[in-house]
């Protein structure tokens, strides 16, 4: 998947008498996702990361820029021409309580993608469904296939969501905060499962999250999003060992690891709030909260996204 200067702006609040205001959810984002790799996009709520996930799957039509899948330009293709994409790319949603249809039994939930894509006969469906349930460790599969979502726990429901994404044998999956509403321990089991599936089936993942710590352990590359823009992108080891953007540094400072010494210190945190996407600050969007912002530069000119270390890009005037 290749994103070139992708923009996704929403027009809201237009009436007969007032022009609508643009919400610049994704503003000029460019990066590439390679076959078989996991890229995490980390950001706070309101950073535009969820919109990015939907745009990448063409559930939304980008306002500007280009979106390429395996070289093919899908930026403005019509939905009905994108059925092939729907087979190759899937989504795992966030909320275990609404990510699967509550009125269908598990069997039917997993059968729907196959029916929609017209893949195989009914008997072949059953085979594929049982295999999918096996893959996500919901065994014995015939036991789970006839259950309804409300009879399963949150973790089990997310596994069903994973199985549903996997059943069409996709090449690319967008996982939008798949574990943030689950318990700590269940989170790990789901993420491990995703990693196993990725390695077993060579699937690319776009993992959207606000939790940098989980991103650390389950991705190859990490991208940091702030106010609709990608501010840093790089291999996970390099980025976390040496965060170059001040926002990334602040983000890392703010996350506590379990250490009883924490209670004796004040945690470094940025004051203020992220800007609204309707009227972002001029120049670098982070400058009002940035501890090292330089007047005259950071509040005037938008920084370029440049490669400062091998494979490690930053959008900051002052990073070195």
């Amino acid at each position, binding site marked *: 998947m290749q994103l070139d200067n992708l923009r996704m702006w929403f027009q809201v609040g237009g009436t007969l008498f007032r022009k609508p205001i643009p919400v610049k959810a994704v503003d000029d984002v460019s990066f590439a996702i390679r076959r078989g790799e996991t890229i995490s996009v980390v950001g706070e709520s309101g950073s535009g990361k969820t919109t990015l996930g*939907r745009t990448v*799957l063409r*559930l939304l039509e980008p306002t500007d820029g280009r979106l390429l899948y395996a070289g093919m330009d899908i930026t403005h293709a019509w939905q009905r021409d*994108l*059925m092939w994409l*729907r*087979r190759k*790319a*899937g*989504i*795992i*949603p*966030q*909320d275990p*309580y*609404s*990510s*699967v*249809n*509550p*009125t*269908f039994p598990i069997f039917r*939930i997993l059968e*729907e*993608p196959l029916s*929609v*894509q017209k893949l195989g006969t009914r008997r072949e469906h059953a085979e594929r469904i049982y295999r999918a349930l096996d893959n996500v460790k919901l065994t014995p599969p015939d036991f789970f296939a006839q259950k*309804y979502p*409300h*009879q*399963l*726990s*949150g973790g089990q429901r997310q596994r069903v*969501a994973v199985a*549903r*994404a996997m059943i*069409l044998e996709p090449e690319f999956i*967008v996982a939008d905060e798949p574990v943030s509403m689950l318990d700590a321990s269940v989170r790990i089991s789901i993420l491990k499962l995703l990693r196993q599936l990725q390695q077993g089936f060579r699937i690319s993942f776009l993992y959207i999250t606000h939790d940098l710590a989980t991103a650390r352990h389950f991705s190859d590359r990490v991208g940091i999003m702030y106010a609709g823009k990608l501010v840093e992108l790089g291999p996970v080891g390099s980025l976390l060992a040496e965060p170059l953007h001040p926002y990334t540094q602040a983000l890392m400072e703010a996350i506590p690891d379990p250490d009883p010494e924490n209670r004796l210190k004040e945690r470094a945190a940025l004051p203020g709030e992220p800007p609204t996407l309707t009227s972002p600050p001029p120049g670098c969007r982070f400058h009002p909260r940035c501890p090292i912002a330089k007047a005259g530069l950071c509040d005037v000119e938008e920084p370029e996204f440049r490669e400062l270390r091998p494979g490690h890009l930053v959008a900051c005037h002052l990073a070195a």
Partner: protein
Amino acid sequence: MAARAPTVGIKGAFLEAIRMKSGIVGFAILISLLAVTVVIPVYAPYDIVRQWSNVNYWLDNPRVAAPEWTQIFTGKEEPKTTTLASSTFRYVEVRTTIDAEGQVFNLTLINASRKFFWTFDGFPSELSMEITAFFPGNTSDVPGESPLIQIFWNRPDGQYVLLLQRTIPAREFNLPTTYHLSTDSDVIGNIRDWVQREGVISPGNVSQAYIRPETVLFAKMDSHQLDPQEAANLLTGEYQVVVSYTGFSLVDTVRPDLTIYGSVYGIAGTDFSRRDLMTGVLWGAPVALAFGVTAAVVVVLIQAILGAFSGWYGGPIDEFLQRASDFYLIIPILPILIMIALFYTPGIWAILFVVVAFSIVGSTTKVVRSIVLQIREEQFIEAAQSYGASRGRILFRYIMPRIMPYTFALVALSVPAFIFLEASLSFLGLGDPVLPTWGSIIGQAYNEGALFYGWWWWVAFPTIGIVYTTVGFALMGYAFDKVLNPRLREE
């Protein structure tokens, strides 16, 4: 950790609803109504319904008679309708030929009499006699050829009263003639003369009084004889009615039937047209149910589908349907129906059609739309789009099953409204002219001043019917609502 099972589907919601008190009661009421619908054809076959507007069919019933069980409260034994059939009369026949100065007259004298005991505690409500005379008639009305009928009344106190003396027009040969003894002016005149002759009541009062033959003939000869039934004193004992026939051929026969109408009848009484109200009220049930349920189901279904479309597709369709439903909400259905009914006389299916046509969009549309808007945000919808499900598929296969339980509740809650609508129309006399609906019964009762005259049963039973049905559906709908709207639960 598995959550508490939400109600899934109509079956689930239904089973939940039954568990609540309101649900049980509501369901019981509905089952009873259904039972009535099934059982009626046995008790009162459909023929009776078709005869509802046929006056002659009901002639054997008393007018505005109270239900029989009211006797329990009054303590009196109220008279039931008794018909003294002609076969029970005693006939004495004399046939001769008279030769008088060259002219030959044939003569038949028949004396038909019938004794009967009057042991009830009350007066009858009406008296009527049907006499069929069999004689060779001819086309011209020639006096001397037309037979003569005299009706006498013999009382236990020895009084022998001539009620009526009349010739039978020749053209009425072999045809039954009905003599309404309670309202016939000759009868009334004769009775007045009789009472005056006996002198118990002052002449001035007698000539002023309003004579009710069915009361006077059965009342003791005292100062209260001419009073209304509540004040007059009943004379019990053996009565005899005598019909004296004089005919002018040799082959005449006469068959008299006396009907003494009681003052109570049946379980629900009768109305002014002598119709058995129980039949009418019971038949009103399937009519009301059929109309109400059909209207509710069709209307809610159409509105729900449109609401779902509106919420799901959004955009211009949504705008259009929202404004349309606003418009429809303003339209007053009843006045329009009245207008239509004034120009045409619609049958019940036509009414149904108009009601549905004027309720295509409405409050259900808005409710379903908001539910769909909520479901639309749920993440499995997004996931469905990501595996390529078309919008139509998502709407009909994923979203509609979720709103089915709500539509069920909405149907249950709208049925009473439609029943009421139909009842209102019928009340105004604009409904189906043939069928006995609850509304039409109440309407006729109102027109005849039923409550003013104290005929409470005429109004009470159809009203109970409407209230019972309404309560049944309302409780059912309420129980469903509580199931589907968790905040209303009483846990």
